[in-house]
């Protein structure tokens, strides 16, 4: 590590958040850059299952080697400059300035995205499908990386296999954007418009009996709802708050309860203590929730909890269709807006 100037940042105050743009739900995130603030690569990223799926010693070592190589190229003036985005500092975000900076509180990473989303919601400009489903999982394309080897494909399934991606291919570009690490790939994959039908990946491969590496541009057809991920790990930062957690019912369970197979019926698994104290709702663990204001199905939501988060606003008063002890009843529920920790 002596080949680097190592800097550890624990508060975002004073940091250009447009330059260092990353999914703030990563507990750790790294960049390798130069003194001109040209970013060579990112190291970080995660999937819904774990914060460490894509992080390990080998891949970090590889990323650092790539960072050093990019730096040598830059010093030799052989690396094109990338355009720097317009700077944006946390103090320029009104809610964040008033509620955090002016109170001399720590500007934690997650507050950047949380306040940004809240401001958008207040302004009526929040696109929940984009904001909630940040950092889509490349496994939805059928790409399973050999993580210690960086962007080398360990196994190609689904859309990736159909398009011709093979085991051993090394991904080097998404669209026209060069990528060195999983962090790069996930960051730029996230920039893909949610209504896109295709993306292009460039891979480097060595064919059998051929010593020379070859580049191949591969067009992938994006699967239906390719951007969709399990939101559990970022659940606490999405408005509105509902103060219960649930699991989607299986098709069999829905059938047993006489509920539509395409519905978002779900079983309550946890009730937040504030629900009762603040008079928000009277749901109980074990309740089957199957409708919200009479609606029972949604194109995206697979639970009533998710339906409310996607389609309703903070402060809404809703009627939840519930099955409790085999009997159907309606329960009133009021949603709330986050107040943020700290």
């Amino acid at each position: 590590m002596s080949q680097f100037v190592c800097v550890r940042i624990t508060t975002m105050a004073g940091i250009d958040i447009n330059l260092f743009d990353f999914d703030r739900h990563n507990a750790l995130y790294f960049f390798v850059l130069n003194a001109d603030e040209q970013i060579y690569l990112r190291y970080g990223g995660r999937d819904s299952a774990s914060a460490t799926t894509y992080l390990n010693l080998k891949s970090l070592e590889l990323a650092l080697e790539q960072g050093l190589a990019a730096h040598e190229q830059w010093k030799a003036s052989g690396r094109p400059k990338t355009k720097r985005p317009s700077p944006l500092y946390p103090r320029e975000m009104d809610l964040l300035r008033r509620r955090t900076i002016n109170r001399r509180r720590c500007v934690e990473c997650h507050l950047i995205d949380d306040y940004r989303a809240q401001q958008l919601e207040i302004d009526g400009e929040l696109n929940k499908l984009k904001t909630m489903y940040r950092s889509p999982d490349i496994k939805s394309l059928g790409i399973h990386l050999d993580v210690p080897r960086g962007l080398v494909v360990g196994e190609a399934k689904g859309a990736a296999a159909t398009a011709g991606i093979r085991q051993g291919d090394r991904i080097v570009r998404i669209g026209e954007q060069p990528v060195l690490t999983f962090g790069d790939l996930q960051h730029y994959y996230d920039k893909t418009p949610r209504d896109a039908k295709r993306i292009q990946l460039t891979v480097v491969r060595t064919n059998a009996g051929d010593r020379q590496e070859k580049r191949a541009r591969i067009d992938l057809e994006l699967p239906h709802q390719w951007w969709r991920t399990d939101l559990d790990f970022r659940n606490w930062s999405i408005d509105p708050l509902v103060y219960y957690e649930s699991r989607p019912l299986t098709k069999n369970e829905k059938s047993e309860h006489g509920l539509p197979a395409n519905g978002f019926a779900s079983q309550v698994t946890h009730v937040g203590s504030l629900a009762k104290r603040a008079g928000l709702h009277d749901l109980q663990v074990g309740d089957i929730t199957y409708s919200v204001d009479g609606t029972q199905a949604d194109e995206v939501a697979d639970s009533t909890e998710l339906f409310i988060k996607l389609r309703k606003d903070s402060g809404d008063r809703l009627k939840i269709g519930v099955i409790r002890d085999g009997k159907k009843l309606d329960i009133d529920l009021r949603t709330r807006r986050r107040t943020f920790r700290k």
Partner: protein
Amino acid sequence: MRVTATLVVSILAVLSLAGLAGQKPSPGGLPGADSAETQTRDSIKWVRNYSQALARARQSGKPIFLEFRCKP
């Protein structure tokens, strides 16, 4: 959930970086967070100020390894 994730990743990162540094953990522990430079148990000298890191990178010709993390 978030705390667990933070811990897991932090431990991983510290172990990783200690491994990369190729040195045994320093017995010195963690100096105060306010100092411009801190040497952590992973034996890495962390600059705590971004502008200072840029200046050092310019002076030394080295690239910058920048870490964002929730807790010091």
